[in-house]
């Protein structure tokens, strides 16, 4: 990971010097640079054959929708996927890094990755950054020990649950889960419930919106259903197109080439070896 070489302590560990400086600057009145937050609804549930993960696709930068169709369900291993809420850069970087570590681990052991391995790698990384890596994750997968679903908070604590929601739309989605979840759902029932929970987040939370992504993981198989539902299509698109009349007139176009500045030094010294 990139560490600032000048201020890194002699032994490992994170240097919090810059965090102190940032807080000091904020107190002095500096506006912190805005970063892309996902302001999300992400959910997961365990059904009879495995795990289903769901996410919305809106990425926000303050009050603006920065990406109308971003991917929040990240690949960790062929049998493990992870939904990410929080700062988009943090969730992508941390899932990418752990996915890489899991791949090397698979080579060394010759075995399929386990969900608890991904869980432990993620939580120890997040804990060592003391919550400054703003990634709230829903991790789900199926391995030799069965289907697993976990939530991971930015400070590094984890929960193991049969159904979970995270992000700004988590309350709206949890309302759906709490009323309709039961053990032993079939695949279609599970997907329908996940889509319903995400839609609840999309329609009732400002930070979530656009489309529904679903990922179904079962033993030996995973289906990544990108844009499973599109409940927010553009309803009216003008066929004539738009014409914006020119309000300014171009009076004169003049191109002045820059003169080449070449100095000729007579009898200069040869370059020293």
């Amino acid at each position, binding site marked *: 990971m990139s560490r600032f070489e000048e201020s890194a302590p002699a032994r490992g560990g994170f240097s919090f010097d810059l965090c102190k400086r940032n807080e000091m600057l904020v107190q002095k009145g500096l506006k912190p640079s805005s970063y892309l937050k996902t302001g999300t609804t992400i959910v997961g549930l365990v059904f009879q054959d495995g795990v289903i993960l769901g996410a919305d696709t809106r990425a926000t930068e303050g009050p603006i929708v920065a990406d109308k169709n971003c991917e929040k369900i990240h690949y960790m291993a062929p049998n493990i996927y992870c939904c990410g809420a929080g700062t988009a850069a943090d969730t992508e970087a941390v899932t990418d890094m752990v996915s890489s570590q899991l791949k*090397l681990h698979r080579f060394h052991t010759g075995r399929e990755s386990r969900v608890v391995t991904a869980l432990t790698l993620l939580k120890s990384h997040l804990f060592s950054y003391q919550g400054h890596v703003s990634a709230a994750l829903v991790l789900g997968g199926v391995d030799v020990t069965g289907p697993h679903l976990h939530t991971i908070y930015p400070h590094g604590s984890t929960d193991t649950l049969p159904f979970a929601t995270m992000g700004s739309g988590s309350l709206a989605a949890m309302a759906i889960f709490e009323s309709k979840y039961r053990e032993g759902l079939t695949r279609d029932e599970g997907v329908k419930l996940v889509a319903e929970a995400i839609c609840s987040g999309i329609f009732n939370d400002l930070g979530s919106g656009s489309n529904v992504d679903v990922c179904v993981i079962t033993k030996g198989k995973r289906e990544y259903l990108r844009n499973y539902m599109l409940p927010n299509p553009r309803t009216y698109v003008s066929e004539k197109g738009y014409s914006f009349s020119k309000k300014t007139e171009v009076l004169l176009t003049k191109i002045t080439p820059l003169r080449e500045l070449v100095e000729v030094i007579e009898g200069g010294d040869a370059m020293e070896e």
Partner: protein
Amino acid sequence: MGDSQYSFSLTTFSPSGKLVQIEHALTAVGSGQTSLGIKASNGVVIATEKKLPSILVDEASVQKIQTLTPNIGVVYSGMGPDSRVLVRKSRKQAEQYYRLYKEPIPVTQLVRETATVMQEFTQSGGVRPFGVSLLVAGYDDKGPQLYQVDPSGSYFSWKASAMGKNVSNAKSFLEKRYTEEMELDDAVHTAILTLKEGFEGQISGKNIEIGVIGNDRIFKVLSPSEVEDYLQEAE
């Protein structure tokens, strides 16, 4: 590695301009079990003898041919533990390359980085050169490729090569048998016949190992029963 009593390099030049330690490393390779590789028109095959020190050793637990990435495999001749270190480093380098460029590492790049590691161990303090030569087989956008990496860190691309014991016989056999238009199955048969040339005892699916990569770009180590099938075809 700088502040110990061994901060000088143990590999030093002889008056004749040779690095004696590397010569000795090559001798260690030359007394290792035979391994060879053949590049076909549509894939690469690498093979090695798997002679175990005793019949009591569980041969299923030993695997000499290793996968570095899904489309690159490697076999060695020489000291097994040294090859383990190199395989581990190479896998990590391949993964770091992927993390940085989001592209599977090209075969030449991985070979070059592995060779760099091997060279570093001939010019650093307190370490000895690796006692292995590697044969790296891969298939990427440039097609099938076969590279040999020596303890000195030099690497060459080969159409067919052999290393370890019996290398001169094996190489002359390959020179006679190799054709540019050879396909992967023919290459596997040729590899088996070459191994058979210098083999002491009865060759079987349990005492040789074969790894192949074809157009599908997935490196695979053949199971003992698959090796037996090829052995019977080659008879």
